[in-house]
């Protein structure tokens, strides 16, 4: 079940909210858990028992870590990490490794390994990271384990961020899981609705429209495309991905507020970044934070030599890329960004400081767009062909036509993405959009959000509705 589906928006979600709102405070966690388990079981009925088993193991290990010291403490943590990484590796990456090993075997004339492809549990990349944050935060003494297993299950399973983040670490949510009475207010709920409806509109009205064009470009043979097609397709995808992902994060944060949780922000106008370093402080912020807390700093961060720092950065970005998907183009995408981070730290940042900000933004945007081609392409080979075509600037006439709707939506996407380039506007927007406001503005925000909701539902439901005038045999 996805957030942008009729069954979620008009059946599951209103019913769930109604039950949640009428449930007494001390039982709300159980209602939220029941709803979340139902949500997961709808989408992945075969995996729920397996995931439950891993949760049980981690919960038990969390207690063990908390109540032991010294070497045993480390062992329990190691076991937890191995279970989680092993789980992720098996379900997400085993197919990739076996496929590549077999290609090597075939190349050398050896018999390939016999293997049945493993299916991927929904949300695995997100909940494994959250599980790891639980045991690591306990190990670090940052928070005690949760007393109730159901609260722990809720932390992992809460449907708002289970499928697509934001990645919520244990120390951020620990207190709210136990007591969030102060956040169960009407103002919070209203802000939650506004955030959810706005996120839905970003995804449905902007991302989906741009995605149609991007798909038509990326699904076409490169030979049939002009440079203009590929550039426009890449730009369309750039904004599709942002509005889709940021929209989903908005919906997750909105649901969190409705339930009394404060989830961290995940995007902060990433396309106004003036360097790749800054980009990663504005894009998928929770992933960056997780990588920093649980990988970069344990590796040594920037505490050791410059070479070691750069190696650590590279490793982090390589793993970030691989985390996104089990394919070579994701790995190369990670390497692409890691390389520019290292280059900026080495010397490029100093050069960037000397040029006007508009050129810094243009440079960053160009690197990001080219990176997204790697990310989106159906294979690494296709990505290379696409980038070659882009940089050749051969035929600049569009072979795939665009319509007025695409152009209008793209203009809106660009406007909303770059409007915060002025610090003044950025602060005003963030204040108006994110923070609780006076009632009159709240009312206006709610009215706009409800309108967004109605139009979004109209677009969701009509997406597949394209009748013939008359039935034809």
């Amino acid at each position, binding site marked *: 079940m996805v957030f942008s589906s009729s069954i979620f928006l008009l059946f599951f979600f209103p019913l769930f909210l109604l039950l949640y709102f009428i449930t007494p405070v001390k039982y709300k966690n159980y209602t939220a858990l029941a709803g979340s388990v139902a949500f997961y079981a709808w989408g992945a*009925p075969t995996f729920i028992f397996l995931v439950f088993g891993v949760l049980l193991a981690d919960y038990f290990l969390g207690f063990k870590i908390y109540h032991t010291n010294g070497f045993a403490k480390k062992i329990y943590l190691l076991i937890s990490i191995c279970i989680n990484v092993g789980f992720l590796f098996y379900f997400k990456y085993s197919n990739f490794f076996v496929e590549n090993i077999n290609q090597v075997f075939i190349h050398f004339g050896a018999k390939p390994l016999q293997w049945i492809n493993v299916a991927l549990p929904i949300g695995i990349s997100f909940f494994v990271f959250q599980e790891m944050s639980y045991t690591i935060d306990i190990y670090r003494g940052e928070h005690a384990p949760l007393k109730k297993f159901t609260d722990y299950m809720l932390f992992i399973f809460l449907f708002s961020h289970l499928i697509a983040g934001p990645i919520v670490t244990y120390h951020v949510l620990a207190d709210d899981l136990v007591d969030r009475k102060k956040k169960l207010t009407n103002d919070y709920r209203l802000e939650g609705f506004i955030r959810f409806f706005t996120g839905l509109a970003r995804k449905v009205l902007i991302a989906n429209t741009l995605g149609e064009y991007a798909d038509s470009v990326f699904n076409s043979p490169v030979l049939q495309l002009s440079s203009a097609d590929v550039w426009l397709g890449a730009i369309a995808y750039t904004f599709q991905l942002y509005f889709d992902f940021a929209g989903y994060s908005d919906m997750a944060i909105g649901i969190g507020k409705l339930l009394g949780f404060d989830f961290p922000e995940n995007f902060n106008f990433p396309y106004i970044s003036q360097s790749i370093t800054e980009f990663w402080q504005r894009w998928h912020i929770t992933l960056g934070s997780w990588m920093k807390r649980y990988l970069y700093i344990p590796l040594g961060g920037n505490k050791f030599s410059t070479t070691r720092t750069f190696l650590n950065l590279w490793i982090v970005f390589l793993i970030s890329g691989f985390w996104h998907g089990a394919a070579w183009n994701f790995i190369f995408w990670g390497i692409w960004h890691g390389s520019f981070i290292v280059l900026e730290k080495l010397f490029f940042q100093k050069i960037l400081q000397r040029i006007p900000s508009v050129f810094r933004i243009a440079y960053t945007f160009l690197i990001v767009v080219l990176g997204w081609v790697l990310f989106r392409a159906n294979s690494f080979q296709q990505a290379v062909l696409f980038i070659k075509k882009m940089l050749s600037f051969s035929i600049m006439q569009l072979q795939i036509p665009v319509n007025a709707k695409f152009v209008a939506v793209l203009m809106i996407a660009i406007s909303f993405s770059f409007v915060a380039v002025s610090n003044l506007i950025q602060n005003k927007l963030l204040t108006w959009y994110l923070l609780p406001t006076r009632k009159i503005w709240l009312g206006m925000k709610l009215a706009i959000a409800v309108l967004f909701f109605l139009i979004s539902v109209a677009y969701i439901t009509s997406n597949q509705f394209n009748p013939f*005038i008359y039935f034809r045999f």
Partner: protein
Amino acid sequence: MLLPMIQFAFHPIKSKELKGSFEKFEMPKFNWHSWFDNSFQEATNNYVENNFGFRNDFVRLHNQLDFSLFNIPHVKDVIIGKDFYLFEEGYIKEYCGTNYESLDTLKKYTLDRYNRIKFLQDTLRKLGKQLVVVIAPGKPFYFPDKIPDHYLKERKSATQYNEILNCCNALSVNYIDFNNWFINRKNTIDFPLYSKLGVHWTDYGASLSFDSLCSYFEKVNHKTFRNYYVTYCDTTTTFRKTDGDAFESLNTIWKLKCEKLKYLHYEKKEPDTAWKPQVLTVADSYYWTMLATDLPKKCFANGSEFWYYYNENWRLNNYVISNNPIEKQNLKEQIQHFDFVVLLCGGTNYQSIGMDFVFDLSNEMGYKK
């Protein structure tokens, strides 16, 4: 957010149905196997997407926004021409001659079909029956100035319409060319024979065409049977019946006004004529417009049939038309009941006038290539 669920469960408010032909989804039956392989969830999702409360109104909202803001019609194959004239793309391709791959194949295929039609015409005449090919008009022929320019850039001189005329003339096949008739009368007739917002001829155009068809029957059979007269006519800018079928299938919130259209109202003369023809019409949706005038019900005998795309059998009995199963065997025997066989198609189906009926019947009647 709860309102659609309440509407879905209790239907307190009646929602207008959507127009057009589209797939309908049923609520699936639950079993554990379908749950675990996700087929139940998928089927439920489809059912809910298409049946939740106020769904039709949401579809109209979406369609209205896309139509008003971006000129996007959400109907398969419908395009918006100049000045908001609606066309079905297939008709434009027929007009431009871009709906066939090779001219040689087109000629060969058309010749084969019309050789068979000629064979049927001659064979049926020996049995005292008449066969006639009726070329219904195509909207792009009538409004060529409203076609978007990028279609016209690819226009060829050879079209299926031309090939049909060539074959009919060369083989002396009986035909009525309403396409040419419409074009010739466009500037002289008082009201449009084609509407801006419809795919088919107007009710007025269909009435005049039907009258001409009956006149042909009377001439060929030397018997009069037309027994209706016009009681009154009215004009309106709000389309009726199928005159705005393309626009109605857009399923928007607001109805567009069209140009002034004329509607004739008929009464049956008394006493009824002694003889009425029993007619078999094998046709596409153009014949529905003729049926909507009610004239066939007044003029044709009981037992007259309309074989829609040679797949559905709509039979006339006591001024009522009902759907019956179609029998594709023993056509030779079935034909015995009819006085006239009409093969009728409009602009996008010119290449298949008579559909497979022509092949099936000619084979049964011993056609040899």
